[in-house]
């Protein structure tokens, strides 16, 4: 069953089409990443999905509830982690969590217990009585996430939750996203870091200028660029002769010379490399350096847009 179903969602600001008719489905219990550069329309999409912005066109259903017509039911099943930290800086972590828990309808002993659990989960039990304004960026990010988890939502949106923090905090956040999935939550995760999308997602969609330009599993997307590994080698010996032999090796799809280096496209570098070494040894040639590049989402984005993900 699908936890989120988006159909032709649209939103413009003036003449700028921030979200230009996107459709996708997120299965229950999976991590779905929306990968895209700055200004792609990720936050605008999430704002519509959390009923903050009314779509100009299209609709979406969260656990069967329409964002247009059943906003109360949608909000009750959601946890939203905003991109910009939205907390009361003069209140402590505990006071913040207590307050947000109340806004999700928790009270009394149940609330206290959940606040304890969430503080534990985000690793801030010790510092719970310090004002959030005195925390490091990573700690604030963790409270920002914790505030969306108190009511154990079935669906959670996380809008670039790791932006601008140290590697350690990022690690702990990524681990907690996986932990949420293991608890049965559906996570819709936006990011412009390819590595995060690659690591976390069951399915993902690539968004650019308000449109989805591709979606599927990582494997499916990588098929778009051919799914071939790229190997770059340097040898001491006759390049042309070696090239002729290597073209005949099974699994090698293409072999060319670029700036004195051998460039090979192979189906699977694990299987091809031993054969290449064998053949080189037989021909009395030494391989002096090897570089393997597996196809990644960066390559997919480049392939589809002609631009690199990072420079947006």
């Amino acid at each position, binding site marked *: 069953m699908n936890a989120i179903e988006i159909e032709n969602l649209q939103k413009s600001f003036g003449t700028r089409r921030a979200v230009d008719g996107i459709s996708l489905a997120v299965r229950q219990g999976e991590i779905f990443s929306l990968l895209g550069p700055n200004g792609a329309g990720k936050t605008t999409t999430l704002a519509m999905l*959390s*009923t*903050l912005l*009314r779509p100009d066109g299209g609709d979406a259903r969260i656990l069967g509830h329409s964002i247009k017509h059943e*906003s*109360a039911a949608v*909000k*009750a099943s*959601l946890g*939203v982690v*905003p991109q*910009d*930290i*939205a*907390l*009361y800086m*003069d*209140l402590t972590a505990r*006071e913040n969590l207590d*307050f*947000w828990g*109340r*806004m*999700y*309808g928790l*009270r009394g002993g149940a609330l206290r217990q959940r606040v304890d659990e969430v503080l534990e989960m985000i690793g801030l039990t010790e510092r719970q009585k310090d004002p959030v304004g005195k925390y490091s960026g990573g700690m604030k990010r963790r409270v920002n996430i914790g*505030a969306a988890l108190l009511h154990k939502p079935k669906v959670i949106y996380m809008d670039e939750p790791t932006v601008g923090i140290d590697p350690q905090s990022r690690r702990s956040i990524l681990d907690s996203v996986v932990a949420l999935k293991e608890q049965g939550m559906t996570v819709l995760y936006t990011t412009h870091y390819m590595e995060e999308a690659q690591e976390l997602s069951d399915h993902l969609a690539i968004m650019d200028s308000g449109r989805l330009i591709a979606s599927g599993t990582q494997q499916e997307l990588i098929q778009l660029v051919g799914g071939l590994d790229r190997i770059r080698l340097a040898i001491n010996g006759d390049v042309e002769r070696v090239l002729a032999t290597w073209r005949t090796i099974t699994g090698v799809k293409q072999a060319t010379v670029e700036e004195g280096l051998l460039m090979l496209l192979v189906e699977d570098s694990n299987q091809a490399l031993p054969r290449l070494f064998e053949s080189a040894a037989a021909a009395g040639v030494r391989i002096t350096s090897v570089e393997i590049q597996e196809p990644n989402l960066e390559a997919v984005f480049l392939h589809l847009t002609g631009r690199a993900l990072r420079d947006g």
Partner: protein
Amino acid sequence: MEGTAALLKTFDIARKDLLRSFRSAFLLMFMFGIPLLVTGMFALMFGNLQESASPPETADAGQVSMEAAAAALLDVQSPFPERQPVSSGNMVTNVIGPVMGGMLIFFAFFTAVSAAQTILKEEEEGTLPRLFTTPTSAAAILNGKFLAVGLTVLVQISLLLAASALIFHIPWGSLASAALTALGATGAATGFGIFFVSLLKNMRQAGAVTGGLLTLTGMLGMMPVFASSASGEVSPLLLVSRCVPQGWAVNGLLLGLHSASLGEVALNSLALLIWTLAFLWIGVRRFRQRYMKG
């Protein structure tokens, strides 16, 4: 069920706002420190802190304006020779009391506006949008913010009245009349804050106009403090002060100070109530239009 849950959340939002206000040293200084300090300075200047410690026995004695008091103090020929010299009793009711009353109202309106501005601040800091993603109705959220403004001002006015009665022995009148004026002034300040902030787009705009507007209206409202007329004739300054809600609030306190009848005080509070309702009618509607479109 739904209704109770919404009401509880409204109280939670108000409680959170109060916690934030009363934890801020800056706000506390502003709300309580400055009005008391300014009044304290006046009390010291007039050198009567000690003597005025005895309860004023002649609250009804000839009412002396600040000018006259200052003139007497400086030993200058008084421009109002018919007036009595300042005694410790009427020093409290004619100088220290009115100054305290004026300061109290002046700063209560500041508090109301700054509390109402947290709506704009929360919008810009993202906590208000975040609130709108929770299963809390926009009405419950706004009501919580409005309630917080009212409660903050009520606490400020009540504490300042009590503190100044204790420290400066200012006789604010009977408990009933002080309470009526405190409530009326709280309402008017709250309404004014919500109304005024509802006209603003964002905090940048707020920063540009708030100080000036509050100072201007606050000063107009304080006119009666400097112009309480002995002869009973209505000074034009008094009329001007009635154009702003602060004037009516100050008037309520002065009435109590001069032991006016409960009826007079009640009538003045009724006027404050009208200000309150008019401001709220516009302000609340504007906020609802802004945040409850969907």
